[in-house]
């Protein structure tokens, strides 16, 4: 791009756009990316400078050719089935959990007559029962070795006997005064 000197026709207090300025900011001007003040200054320079104006005209023609070429190529592309292909691969949208629960509950016909308060009461009762229910209800001893260790025995009876059975080693304490005839 050549320089054109001596083009000072525009009356302005601002610095005049030179050909170097024009060349440096040419791409931005062509793409319309400059601010309005710069766009106007560049346009004025192109209109007064034949060299820069010619460069701009050629560039605009080239750009126009490119755009038309691209558009013609795009017109040949058949996009009619594109969206259908994309849509087929998309998962159906999922609604919120609360909405899904509500829909599920709504589908259950047996559920409908139950008032919410009843359900809440049943839930509260279940939690309360779980809290206060005995932790375990054990039956007979399930331990393999049921041996008891006796640390102390005091009795007013004359005889107290302690013995164990041989299989589970379960221990028995016998207070003899209750059995005048003797132990079993």
């Amino acid at each position, binding site marked *: 791009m050549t320089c054109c000197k001596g083009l000072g026709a525009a009356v302005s207090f601002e610095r005049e756009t030179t050909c170097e300025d024009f060349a440096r900011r040419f791409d931005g001007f062509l793409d319309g990316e400059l601010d309005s003040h710069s766009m106007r200054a560049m346009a004025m320079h192109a209109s007064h400078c034949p060299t820069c104006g010619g460069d701009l005209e050629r560039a605009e023609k080239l750009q126009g050719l490119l755009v038309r070429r691209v558009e013609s190529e795009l017109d040949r592309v058949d996009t009619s089935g594109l969206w259908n292909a994309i849509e087929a691969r998309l998962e159906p949208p999922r609604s919120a959990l609360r909405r899904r629960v509500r829909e599920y509950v709504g589908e259950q016909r047996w559920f409908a007559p139950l008032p919410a308060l009843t359900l809440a009461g049943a839930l509260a009762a279940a939690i309360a029962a779980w809290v206060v229910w005995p932790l375990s209800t054990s039956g007979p001893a399930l331990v393999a070795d049921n041996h008891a260790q006796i640390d*102390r025995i005091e009795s007013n009876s004359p005889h107290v006997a302690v013995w164990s059975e*041989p299989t589970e080693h379960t221990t*028995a304490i016998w*207070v003899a005064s209750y*059995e005048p005839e003797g132990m079993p």
Partner: protein
Amino acid sequence: MKNAFPPARPWVLPLAVLLCAVAVRLAVADDEVALHVRTVLATDSGSDFDNRLDGYRRQLRGLFHYTSYRLVKEEERHCPLGRKNNFEIPGGRFLEVLPVALRENRVRLRVLLIEGTSPPPLDTDFTVPNRGNIWVGGPRNPEGVLLISIGAEATP
């Protein structure tokens, strides 16, 4: 005046109640002991064996030599360690059971057999395996002899 607190979500309260219930449950579970006292009437008349005592058949046959066993009273209590429990035994007797401690999966018990105002026929300290039991025999009954099973189950 604008409320300083954000509106509570509807699931916050039920969740809080549930968490409290879990906490209470766990707190209770840590200290609770289940005491089982079963009183059996043993006689030498007949050969009946109460089917409710099937789980104790081997123990009873191994320890005693009566011909008939019948469950006359069964009681289960849940209490924390360190709390005395009085179980009524037929014939105006009481069995005072104190779960003292749980150590190495054995439960330490203090048992006092009380009969009227006379000195207690039995006052003993012992340990049994967790979920184990011990038998106390001797109290007379018009029909035979009472055998008392004292069992304990604690949550380790």
